[in-house]
């Protein structure tokens, strides 16, 4: 089966190589997306097969350099996720294919890079795949580089991708140790200790966290996702951030060994909570649909990181069942988020194609014009708002249950932290619900705000399938979290080597023995019975049908002839809908401000309302970094004016310093 995977990767590479010469044919886009669809199905199939049948042994890649690949349960879980997200994205691509040759080449490479990262069995291959993924996705982010804002997004994206590489390569080097054995088996045999462990933790959290979009390194997501084509942003948000999560889990929880102390998970826990709240709050303020979804991705990545951090802490405190619960919740939420976020990004892509805008203030009323898209997106919105019985609720239920048990770790400081994280996670979930209501309500409900929005239609068949497939999986995963947890058992055991007690069944999930339980199938049955009974009783007594009339709106008059959909200004706007939250939380978390300039009495000038907010990472991280960069550049400029002797001294000094370092390392 590993051979099949390697052949798939080779096929994707071939597809990328052929894309440039074949791009002049009209069918090139279709062929490329068809090929990627096939590859994604193979990836998902292999992932599922390994989860059911067991791990595949290590094998060397036939590429001339020593590169090892293997698929264990953790890799397989993420391969399944990647395959499913890739299938949805490629299906959408069949309807709205990429055209430029460089994009046709980059898309399969992006997929192959992600798959290679997942099946890597040594540090070198891992970094190789990770960097291929970064560079290919950079090309895709820069797809529409004619616009200045997209160029800015691509530059910012590349800077963060570089940061990831700069941090991950030394992290892998430190894990390999002096012996330099980069294979995962070798690293596991000699896990890092002391300051090396601290350095690895910091480097991996920064390196993989920057790719996943963890606060404070989340800044590229709200820029890059709107810049990329819709199905690429779906794949980036659903799969690429999860690949970063995989790297995080693999390096910190698996390869760094099980004997790490309690604080090992704390950075993930704290940064995850911060990401969850900040992302969800920003999602309530953004006025571009895809930026909003990108911020919601930050929130969900935060929740997944909370789960992983919690698993590490529980593991250190010898609470095996709870550690398994937290890790299972993180893995399940990664899969669920991949599905509903693919769905939402593709749905917004369909909206952007049909209504020619992604700005919430230019859409509206699309539920009439695009019933299929609206129905599918409603499922995604409900799952993202974590409403039972959909998939988002199942994984957040598990995560909250794990968080509610965080006090069992005896340390008082950790207990206090746990309480704060519970509040943050609940706040994030409620904020996400508000953001999703805002998204669906402004885009699909109400009246059209522009003529283009009034003339939208549903997409062609493959695009509809690309929405219906993740919508169906979102419902299915919501009903069967127990089965999925059973499937993820092997992956959890990779992260937590000691045995994890059985805690899930076909129809339910539970928290240890005697703990809380969640039965999604029974709940759905209850909702169906209660809903059916209410419907039957009401319809028996009530007259059939409805009468139609102009909206009541507290007695407002009907709109004039020249405004067929009414004045858009009388509808809630994107900024207006976010105003309560901006006032309640924005001031302290996002430096939101709002001021009204009233003209003097008698002055006919209009009153002016100005409002805005700034992400704290801009002011606290990026602005100082930019200042340092400029100062460094000015300082480096001085090197050009050095006399010849000094210029010669520089490389000599460097050489001596490196030799001294090598000698010191030898001596240790």
């Amino acid at each position: 089966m590993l051979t099949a995977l390697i052949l798939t990767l080779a096929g994707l590479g071939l597809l990328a190589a052929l894309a440039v010469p074949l791009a002049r044919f009209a069918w090139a886009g279709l062929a490329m997306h068809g090929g990627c669809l096939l590859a994604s199905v193979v990836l998902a199939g292999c992932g599922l097969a390994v989860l059911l049948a067991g791990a595949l042994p290590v094998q060397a890649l036939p590429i001339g350099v020593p590169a090892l690949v293997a698929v264990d349960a953790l890799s397989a879980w993420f391969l399944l996720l990647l395959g499913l997200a890739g299938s949805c994205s490629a299906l959408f691509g069949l309807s709205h294919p990429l055209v430029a040759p460089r994009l046709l080449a980059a898309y399969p490479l992006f997929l192959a890079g992600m798959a290679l990262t997942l099946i890597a069995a040594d540090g070198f291959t891992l970094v190789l795949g990770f960097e291929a993924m970064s560079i290919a996705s950079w090309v895709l982010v820069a797809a529409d580089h004619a616009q200045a804002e997209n160029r800015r997004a691509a530059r910012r994206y590349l800077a963060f991708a570089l940061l990831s590489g700069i941090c991950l390569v030394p992290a892998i080097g430190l894990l390999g140790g002096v012996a330099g054995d980069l294979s995962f088996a070798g690293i596991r045999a000699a896990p890092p200790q002391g300051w090396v462990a601290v350095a690895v933790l910091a480097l991996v959290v920064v390196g993989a966290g920057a790719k996943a979009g963890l606060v404070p390194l989340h800044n590229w997501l709200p820029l890059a996702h709107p810049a990329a084509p819709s199905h690429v942003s779906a794949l980036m948000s659903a799969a690429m951030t999860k690949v970063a999560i995989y790297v995080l889990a693999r390096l910190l929880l698996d390869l760094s060994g099980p004997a790490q102390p309690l604080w090992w998970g704390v950075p993930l826990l704290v940064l995850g909570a911060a990401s969850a709240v900040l992302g969800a709050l920003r999602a309530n303020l953004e006025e571009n649909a895809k930026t909003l979804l990108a911020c919601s991705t930050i929130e969900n990545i935060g929740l997944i990181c909370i789960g992983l951090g919690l698993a590490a802490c529980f593991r250190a405190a010898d609470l095996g069942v709870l550690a398994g619960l937290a890790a299972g919740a993180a893995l399940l939420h990664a899969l669920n988020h991949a599905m509903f976020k693919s769905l939402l990004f593709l749905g917004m892509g369909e909206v952007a194609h049909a209504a020619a805008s992604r700005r919430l203030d230019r859409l509206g009323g699309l539920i009439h014009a695009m019933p299929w898209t609206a129905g599918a997106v409603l499922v995604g919105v409900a799952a993202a708002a974590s409403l039972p019985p959909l998939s988002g609720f199942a994984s957040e239920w598990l995560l909250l249950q794990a968080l509610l048990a965080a006090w069992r770790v005896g340390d008082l400081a950790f207990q206090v932290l746990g309480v704060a994280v519970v509040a943050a996670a609940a706040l994030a979930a409620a904020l996400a619900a508000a953001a999703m209501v805002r998204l669906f309500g402004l885009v699909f409900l109400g009246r059209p705000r522009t003529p283009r929005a009034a003339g939208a239609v549903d997409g062609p068949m493959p695009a509809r399938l690309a929405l219906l497939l993740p919508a169906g999986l979102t419902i299915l995963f919501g009903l069967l979290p127990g089965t999925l947890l059973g499937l993820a058992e092997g992956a959890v055991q990779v992260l937590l080597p000691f045995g994890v007690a059985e805690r899930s069944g076909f129809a339910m999930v539970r928290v240890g023995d005697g703990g809380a339980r969640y039965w999604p199938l029974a709940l759905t049955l209850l909702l169906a019975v209660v809903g059916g009974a209410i419907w039957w009783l009401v319809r028996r007594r009530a007259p059939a049908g409805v009468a139609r009339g102009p909206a009541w709106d507290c007695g407002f008059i009907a709109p004039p002839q020249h405004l067929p959909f009414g004045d858009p200004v009388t509808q809630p706007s994107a900024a207006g809908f976010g105003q309560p939250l901006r006032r309640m939380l924005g001031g302290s978390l996002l430096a939101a401000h709002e001021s009204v300039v009233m003209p003097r009495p008698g002055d006919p000038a209009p009153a002016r309302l100005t409002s805005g907010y700034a992400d704290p990472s801009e002011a606290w991280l990026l602005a100082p970094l930019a200042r340092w960069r400029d100062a460094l550049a000015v300082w480096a400029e001085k090197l050009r004016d050095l006399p010849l002797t000094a210029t010669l001294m520089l490389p000599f000094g460097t050489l001596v310093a490196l030799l001294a370092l090598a000698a010191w390392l030898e001596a240790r």
Partner: protein
Amino acid sequence: MAWLAAILTQILHLALVLAAAPLVVGGIRWLKARMQGRIGASPLQPLRDFLKLLRKRPVLADNASWISQAAPYAGATVALAALVLVPSFARGMALAPLADLVLIAGLLAAGRVALALAGMDAGTAFGGLGASREMSFAALAEPALLLVALVLAMLAGSTGLETIGALFQDGSLGLRVSLGLALVALLAVAVAENARIPVDNPATHLELTMVHEAMILEASGRHLALWEAASALRLTLWLALIAAIFFPFGTAPVGFAPLGWAVGIGAWVAKMALLCLALAAFESAIAKMRVFRVPEFLGAALLLGLLAALLLFLSTRLA
């Protein structure tokens, strides 16, 4: 035999809460009228209104979609489904294994989302205003609720209502400061979630400060009837939840016990009546606050929840 008793309890519970829901709303209105020196409508008035509204054909806005037609059913369904899970007069109901505090929070959130979407469907200014305020208030109410759940889960070892109720009835816990704080936090959340004074005024129409009513301005006929029913069910649910967690006295044990059930029903009716009286007295004594003061009110609930959890940590450490 045990399962028969469980099903019988569940059916009795369903009948009891369905009978209680209109009486709770009507009773609170009647009590408030009496406290304010008015005669007030009969406590059965909400039921009469419900039956009257059911007979009327709804009028929908021209551009309203199927959301406006489906959301009332969804809202009433999740409210009733959540209420079915909250124990009233006896433990060991057939659906007791499903009753989980986090799940009930999720069901309430689902009802809230249905209501907010229905409010935005016609594209009117009032509906959107109400929806955005409702969702924003929930953003602070939900963490407070989860912190209360944390306190209860620490004491009972589970968020299952059955386990929590059994532990509190057993009385081994005694009086704890944390529980008092958690009760106050839960009461504040309940006031906000049910759109009661001082967060919202259930008796107003056409006022800029309203939240809940603003979202159902466009609803009429059976849709309005269902929304009113959903809000009555939700109020009953919150009162029943508070009674089940903090005042579990007299609740009948698991199994077939007709005498215990009679006592349990009597105790439950008394508890609900007392809670209604307290709510009516509170609402009569206090003025509605400005909308942008509500975050402070809910923030206080959140802090009380935090304090409750911290005190519990310290007390378990000292003990």
